């Protein structure tokens, strides 16, 4: 059963048609890759799914619910989490706090409960803390939990963003170029991490990535975008040999 369905998604900015009738179905527990040249519309697609943009045409359906016009925070609370192409951490907050904020969408203590220190709030705080530490353990950042987020190295920051996204207990995780700027060792670890996340948390993952090695290795299915249109979709083997894809993107060195 498809977890996420994009039906005929088109997006126009002024005169520019950034996306043109894109159809996608993401299955449960699948690791799905989206590749394409720069400007093909990949991040725009993410922004539409997460509610930052409202699509000019088309429908986004998540577990049977139409997401169009829902505010971004509601979509997050429904179980879609993401990381950002240009890292968006809470720089002056600690690593631990970054992850704790990530769980905002699934926790409930209100303004008064927190201020008055009601038992329900205190219980929830403990839970949030434990979960956050577990996630930090998962991404191997537990020993840096009290560091300011902007003191971390680039690779560590990317891992922190993933931990924060997981705090939302998502059913769908969107990773926007998570391997960007990493060296090959870090990329290996990242791939291991992504597989581990999928196993442990039984969620679906959509990955936008430029590194073909990463994409071909961990994605089970891949869609290729070019100039806002989906030009190919299939398993990695198929994509590697698809003429249209090779022509537009992979080039002679594929």
């Amino acid at each position: 059963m498809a977890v996420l369905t994009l039906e005929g998604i088109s997006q126009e900015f002024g005169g520019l048609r950034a996306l043109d009738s894109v159809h996608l179905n993401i299955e449960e527990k699948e690791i799905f890759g989206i590749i394409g040249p720069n400007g093909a519309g990949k991040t725009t697609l993410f922004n539409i799914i997460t509610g930052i943009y409202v699509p000019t045409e088309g429908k986004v359906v998540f577990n049977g619910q139409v997401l169009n016009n829902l505010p971004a925070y509601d979509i997050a609370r429904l179980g879609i989490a993401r990381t950002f192409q240009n890292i968006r951490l809470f720089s002056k907050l600690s690593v631990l706090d970054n992850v704790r904020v990530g769980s905002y969408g699934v926790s409930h203590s209100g303004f008064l409960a927190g201020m008055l220190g009601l038992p329900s709030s205190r219980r929830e705080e403990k839970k949030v803390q434990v979960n956050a530490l577990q996630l930090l353990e998962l991404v191997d950042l537990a020993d840096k939990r009290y560091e300011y987020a902007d003191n971390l190295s680039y690779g560590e920051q990317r891992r922190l963003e993933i931990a924060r996204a997981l705090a939302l207990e998502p059913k769908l995780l969107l990773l926007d170029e998570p391997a960007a700027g990493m060296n090959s060792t870090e990329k290996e670890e990242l791939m291991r991490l992504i597989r581990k996340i999928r196993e442990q948390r039984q969620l679906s993952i959509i990955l936008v990535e430029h590194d073909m090695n990463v994409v071909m290795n961990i994605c089970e299915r891949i869609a290729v975008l070019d100039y806002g249109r989906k030009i190919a979709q299939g398993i990695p083997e198929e994509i590697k040999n698809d003429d249209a894809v090779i022509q537009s993107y992979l080039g002679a060195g594929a």
Partner: protein
Amino acid sequence: MDAIISQYIDAYYFRILILIGINIILALGLNLTTGVTGQLSMGHAGFMSLGAYTSAILTVHYTVPFFLALLGGACVAALFGFLLGLPTLRLEGDYLAMVTIGFAEIVRVFFLNFEPGGKAVGFSGIPQDTTFTLVWVLVIIVAYFNYKLLHSRTGRAMYAIRENEIAAEASGVNTTQIKVLAFTTGAFLGGLGGGLFAHYMFFIEPGNFGFMKSIELLNMVVLGGMGSIPGTILGTVILTIAPEMLRIVQDYRLLFYGALLVILMIFRPNGLLGDVRLYDIKKRFSRKEVKSWQS
């Protein structure tokens, strides 16, 4: 209680300490909006004014008991904060700053024309119900609740909005709601401080709550440390005492404030204590913590 304390402290310092206390309450309110949530509010004096006049009118014209009047003033201020914040904070951008300047001006002009408030001549005859004890008890209460709030889920969300609003939304935070909450609470505290001020000074006039007052309060938050409770208190103490000590250079005060803001932003944007967090202390102990947790 006051009588006992005033026996030990010289009347001049007694007065300064009361003013410091009132300013701390005002500044903590502004800190919540601007320091913690990152929404620049330039009209805090407007809320102070609303609280002052409302509470004064209640006690003088309607013989409302003091505590109720204080509460009334704070609630009126909060109401206006809510009404102002809702349309403005919906939008991403820095509109709140300009809107609050205009708001404070309108409030000032309003009270200049407001008959029951005495118009330009001002409002006198306000019962001096504000005591040293009351002020400092309130300071402790306000600081305590601020502390609880900032260390709660809602407080973290407020900081997150300051740091990166889009990422906060992506984590499930209804940023508009939280921004309005911070602004309204800040306004409430502004009104509370205003009420205390009015019932200490015995006399108020619209000029007390002008743009300069808003700037003074902003400076207290910015200098001390944005988003930090001890920082705000420190900034308030420094900037309440300094003008008293430097009475001679009274006229140059604003010049100094203006330059101070620019210099702070360039060299130490988080103020004196903004970068010093409990984290640094915790870090020193965290190594021991990790060991025991892992075993």
